[in-house]
């Protein structure tokens, strides 16, 4: 039979300072670990939610993003008459031909930063129904008016309703503020595509064409029709959600690798801390170990007891670290989106996978930190242990 768990629990209480410090050490490492994963997942979640399952984005082949893509006016005309595109009640295809450019704006916190300016067509409301005006009105097509995402409104100067934003030699009036379900669109400003093309002297060449399918299941048929048209050979089509998922992958992977690398270095400190605590626990309880063994408890019972104590410390640390990390969900931060070279606001996001990973990570720290001291405890000779009294 095992040594009773209350023996371990009461020893924690007896050594609350050293146990507490070790728990805090592990909690901090788990916090950093979970925070990094939450950051990467938050970025992915934000970008993925930017795209819709039933929208298709058309980009130039090999273009990494909308900024580096071009779709000519002729190509736009050909696309607009392809089958399987959803249509409005009056028969217009739900398509938005979108010039996307990066402009520079002053931040409220100081300094300048890049933001994405997107020109949209008049079907954009039907194309992206999750975009909702929360203040002001929609811009008038044909005028130099803008609506700004909630994040831009909060973080940049001149992004209030009635204020002017100046870029490419023109002044644009902010007339509305929109939300888009926490997606990446909230970090953009939108205006009339034709006005934007004119301002940037781009003729009719846009960055991307986004269209709604009449049925999401028709994507393969649409793609097949698209690919058979030789005039569209320079372009490629993707489900919009998949496109943004790919956009998020590089950045999320970068954050994950860098973050996990840093966390592993931190974890060495926490593991050594746990090891010192457990060695001290063994040293302080040598006589008790000798007594328990003399009474008939086996080496494995002693090993399991000390290893369990180390694991328990790490699990308590993991719970505290995760609780701290989960509070990050209430915060939004912005970072440079590697794919668009402009600012992207996102929220830290917790997932069941992150919780499980954090517990596994803490368990590994507890096992590594507790293993050698536990083996030492189990290998003590009874007479030597008793003699240490």
């Amino acid at each position, binding site marked *: *039979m095992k*040594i*009773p768990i*209350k*023996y371990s629990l*009461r*020893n924690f*209480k*007896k050594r609350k300072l050293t146990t507490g410090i070790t728990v805090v050490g592990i909690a901090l490492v788990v916090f950093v670990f979970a925070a990094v994963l939450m950051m990467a997942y938050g970025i992915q979640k934000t970008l993925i939610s930017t795209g819709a399952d039933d929208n298709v984005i058309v980009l130039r082949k090999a273009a990494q993003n909308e900024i580096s893509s071009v779709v000519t006016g002729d190509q736009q005309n050909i696309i607009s008459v392809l089958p399987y595109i959803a249509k409005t009640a009056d028969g217009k295809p739900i398509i938005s031909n979108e010039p996307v450019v990066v402009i520079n704006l002053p931040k409220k916190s100081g300094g300048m930063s890049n933001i994405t300016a997107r020109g949209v067509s008049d079907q954009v409301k039907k194309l992206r129904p999750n975009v909702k005006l929360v203040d002001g009105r929609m811009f008038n097509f044909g005028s130099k008016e803008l609506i700004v995402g909630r994040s831009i409104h909060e973080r940049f100067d001149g992004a209030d309703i009635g204020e002017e934003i100046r870029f490419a030699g023109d002044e644009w009036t902010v007339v509305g503020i929109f939300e888009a379900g926490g997606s990446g669109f909230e970090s953009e400003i939108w205006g009339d595509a034709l006005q934007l093309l004119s301002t940037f002297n781009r003729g009719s060449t846009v960055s991307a064409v986004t269209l709604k399918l009449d049925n999401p299941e028709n994507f393969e048929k649409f793609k097949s029709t698209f690919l058979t048209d030789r005039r569209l050979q320079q372009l490629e089509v993707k489900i919009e959600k998949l496109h943004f998922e790919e956009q998020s992958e590089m950045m999320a992977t970068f954050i994950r690798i860098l973050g996990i690398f840093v966390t592993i270095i931190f974890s060495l400190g926490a593991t050594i801390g746990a090891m010192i605590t457990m060695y001290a626990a063994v040293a302080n309880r040598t*006589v*008790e170990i*000798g*007594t*328990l*063994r*003399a*009474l*008939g*408890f*086996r*080496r494995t019972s002693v090993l399991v007891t000390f290893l369990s104590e180390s694991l328990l410390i790490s699990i308590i640390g993991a719970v505290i670290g995760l609780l701290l990390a989960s509070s990050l969900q209430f915060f939004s931060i912005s970072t440079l989106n590697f794919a668009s070279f402009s600012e992207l606001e996102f929220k830290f996001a917790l997932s069941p996978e992150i919780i499980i990973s954090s517990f596994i990570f803490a368990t590994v720290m507890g096992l590594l930190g507790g293993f050698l001291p536990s083996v030492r405890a189990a290998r003590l000779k*009874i*007479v030597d242990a*008793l003699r240490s*009294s």
Partner: protein
Amino acid sequence: MASIISIQNLSKSYQRDSFEIPVLNNLSLEIEEGEFLALMGPSGSGKTTLLNLIAGIDKPSSGKLTVAGTDIAKLNESALAKWRSNNVGFIFQFYNLIPVLTAFENVELPLLLTNLSKAERKKRVELVLSVVGLTDRMYHYPKQLSGGQEQRVAIARAIVTDPTILVADEPTGDLDKNSANEVLTLLDRLNKEFKKTIVMVTHDPASAAKASVKRHLDKGDLV
């Protein structure tokens, strides 16, 4: 009366660096069932080593050591642990109670190695605590007890499994005269009333006087 402990040509030596230090030399001894044996001798004479060998917490270098018919020198680590839990009750000089467990929980510890139910364990613990006169201190922690009371808890822990032998290493060495007398009276009662075989190591002639048999060790030899 039959021997419960039979020691034949028992030797024990320790290795210190490249030196072999002999502690017990070819020692033979028979201890009868129900005997209260006092092992006496100066420091370093080997009496605690002999006690440790009898209790199965150390292994002899050579010779035969049979306790209640089992040659314990031949048992492996795991079998020896099981044997100890069934056959040996330990009483240490410094009581060796677990400080974070109450008197009840300390006494219950050896019973956790048995198949007894919780209710049966409780009954047994309460019984032995009443034998040592500490029913009212059942839920006290060791630091809340006097030295004499701690040693009585340790004795309760030693007898709770009804072991074949009790081994006591200087059981009164850390106690004042009154407490020492209480403990010795208790050991005497366990021997006489409950027919327990007791092997006790002591320096103290007054303690040894309670024993039915006294043996002296000097430099690893019985004298």
